[in-house]
């Protein structure tokens, strides 16, 4: 069988970026959460806030290291696997990545050392400042990465000469049409994801009756964020969708599985889109409701897939389903957030067993939503890697398929082993919980750089 090098390279990139995105999307919010805990602790002097900060710092250390090692891989894959992409759009995308390294990567990687191991080495205010700097670093990182990615979705501020993009206006490049929406959407998603994990861990402790004081703080902080951010996120998502309709109508047509642009669109709740026959099988629809959502009018028209040549259409099935999974996760978040808020208002939040039992399993919702959202937008951009500029098939490196296959297999083995073990350690850490002794006795302070995670994991594994 003839191996398709482009397909192999796409699988490899999708696999490595999927693993990578899990960790930053967690640590962006977690850094801010830890900084908030430390600031509150400095202001109120309440010890349990300090214990919580230390506990989450250990989890942060493990997650961050996995984010770093998988992130270094990404920065080289643009060249190893997508060298024509680097040539065609390197003049524009390269500087954005460069600014990410300069303003964010160094900041977070360097101050992480102080944040993890400076508990007893630097004055407390400097330690809090390091945590804040790490949080700022992770956010700046998201800013630049989203700027680069959004430019690939809705390029602006450039001109094309001989198939190569040249920068004309940097402000227009960074703040390209989809960037504000996509950055807001991803940033909120990262905070939501962390909030859901914090909420779930708090619920888990309350259910088992452990660490009650810490659990209540986590539940309040996590739930407050989820209850407020989920509806906000839905509004941002809707705005982002309208923006996509304006700039990438084929993506919206695929999301809605809308084939015929000459009629108003039905809202397809479920279907198996049939790309060969250009119709939906087994469809359950709300007539014309899609037009209402997108054009704000029951009989509004928007382009259907048939309005685009077949070779310009994204694959419909993955985009269609990924989008519905993301929205489904959002609905679940809204239910958890608002039911929790209602219980909270009635002062029954900490005693309503059935709610806590369910909420403790809410931790994966944000991760699933982020991954399916990214699949929607990235697969929805196909067949382009840089929309309208460069097709994915033309972007790959002239590397032998056997070499790409070899490295793909290596990535699969290494990532599945290493990251599965890492996630296992994180779970054990959470199981072990924020132990009081750690904050009280100075000799238990993390003494070794990057061993905070190690010590924590050691405790989690049942060590002393």
């Amino acid at each position, binding site marked *: 069988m003839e191996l398709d090098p482009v397909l192999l390279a796409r699988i490899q990139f999708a696999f490595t970026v999927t693993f990578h995105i899990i960790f930053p999307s967690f640590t962006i919010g977690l850094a801010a959460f830890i900084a908030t805990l430390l600031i509150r602790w400095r202001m109120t002097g309440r010890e349990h806030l300090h214990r919580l900060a230390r506990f989450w710092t250990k989890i942060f*250390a493990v997650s961050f*290291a996995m984010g*770093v*090692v*998988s*992130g*270094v*891989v990404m*920065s*080289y894959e*643009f*060249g*190893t696997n997508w*060298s*024509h992409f*680097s*040539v065609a759009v390197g*003049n524009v995308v*390269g*500087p954005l*990545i*460069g600014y*990410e*390294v*300069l303003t964010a*990567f*160094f*900041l977070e*990687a*360097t*101050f*992480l*050392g102080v944040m993890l*191991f400076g508990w007893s*080495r630097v004055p407390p205010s400097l330690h809090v400042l390091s945590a804040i700097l790490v949080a700022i670093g992770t956010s700046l990182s998201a800013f630049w990465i989203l700027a680069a990615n959004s430019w690939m979705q809705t390029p602006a501020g450039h001109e094309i000469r001989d198939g190569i993009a*040249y920068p004309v206006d*940097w402000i227009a490049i960074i703040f390209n049409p989809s960037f504000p929406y996509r950055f807001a959407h991803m940033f909120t998603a990262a905070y939501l994801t962390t909030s859901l994990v914090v909420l779930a861990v708090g619920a888990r402790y309350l259910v088992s009756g452990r660490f009650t004081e810490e659990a209540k703080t986590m539940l309040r902080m996590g739930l407050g964020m989820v209850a407020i951010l989920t509806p906000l996120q839905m509004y941002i998502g809707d705005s982002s969708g309208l923006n996509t309709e304006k700039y990438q109508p084929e993506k919206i047509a695929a999301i809605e599985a809308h084939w015929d642009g000459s009629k108003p669109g039905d809202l397809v709740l479920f279907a198996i889109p049939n790309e060969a026959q250009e119709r939906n099988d087994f469809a359950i629809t709300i007539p014309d409701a899609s037009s209402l959502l997108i054009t704000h009018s029951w009989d509004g028209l928007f382009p259907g897939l048939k309005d685009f040549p077949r070779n310009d259409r994204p694959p419909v099935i993955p985009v269609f389903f990924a989008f519905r999974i993301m929205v489904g996760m959002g609905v679940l978040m809204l239910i958890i957030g608002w039911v929790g808020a209602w219980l909270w208002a009635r002062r029954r939040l900490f005693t309503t067993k059935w709610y806590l039992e369910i909420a403790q399993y809410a931790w994966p919702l944000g991760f699933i939503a982020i991954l399916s959202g990214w699949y929607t937008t990235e697969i929805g951009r196909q067949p382009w890697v840089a929309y309208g500029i460069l097709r994915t098939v033309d972007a790959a*490196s*002239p590397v032998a398929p056997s*070499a790409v296959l*070899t*490295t793909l297999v290596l990535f699969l083995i*290494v*990532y599945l082993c*290493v990251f599965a*073990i*890492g996630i296992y*350690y994180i779970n054990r850490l959470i199981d072990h919980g924020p132990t009081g002794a750690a904050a009280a006795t100075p000799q238990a*302070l993390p*003494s*070794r*750089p*990057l*061993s905070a*995670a*190690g010590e924590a*994991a*050691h405790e*989690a594994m049942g*060590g002393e």
Partner: protein
Amino acid sequence: MDPITLWLPIVWAALIGTAVALYVILDGFDLGIGILFPFEPNESRRDTMMNSVAPFWDGNETWLVLGGGGLLVAFPLAYSVIMPGLYLPIIIMLLGLVFRGVAFEFRWAAKPKHELWDNAFAWGSIVATFMQGVVLGGFLQGIIVQNNAFAGGPLDWFVPFPLFTGLALIVGYALLASTWLIMKTEGSLADDARSWAKRLLVAVVVLMVIISLWTPLAFPRIADRWFVWPNILYLSPIPLLTAFMAVLCWYGLRTKREAMPFISTVGLFLLGYLGLVISNAPYLVPPSLTIWETAAVPESQIFTLIGVLIMLPIILGYTAFVYWTFRGKVREGEGYH
């Protein structure tokens, strides 16, 4: 060529060259710790060795991202040729870095059954270093280019010269790490490090001589750079200074100095690096593409250069701050306070 298109690529080449040199020195000593692991079976000494680099490795590795990212920013064409040209060594190097990076944390977690992560740390470091050396050798021997794209095969690097430079780099990083340990540890570990360093220094000098003879013999363009009048006169300080650094290192080891062996080893590395730059300038993809042929447009180079000029001093400042925070000796079983 107008002054901007002449000078911008030179400035950028100097910046990326500096980032790569910093990476080689900084990650060199922490990769070297992994290379030395098999020679130190004692668990608590292994703990101390790891502790001596653990606060810094994250920041150190970021210079690798800056080197790769900088190449994409300033010389996208070179990036798009070198990366596919050395595809397997680069990917395998990155996988080695994954193993050793997570080992910093997982090793403590797995205790007392941490043998797996000891091995992951050692072999991850060894493989990553070997592949970095192979990348260097593959780069020196030249990458086959047609129509501004890589046109060679996936195993072009699997020939004696790059494999030899891979092995040489392992020995070099081990020397950096053992002189680092002399400076950062004490007692029997420091004594062990001193005796390793003596043997490693001899090996490094021999390897440097072999590579210095091999490159001009194998690559006439490098011979033409060094062995013509008056270049041979102007360039003579480099081998002389290199010999001086080696003597200084030996003297430092014999007289049990703390920092001198490490500093002179850094000097050896920087002089070797300078020699490579002189051998290849102005080619960024030897022997076919120069820094000017591969440069991004001036608009892109200037836009990022502004960021570099503002951020680089800040980055160097806080990196120095972190090294200062974790200064002093690491003692067995004591950690950092």
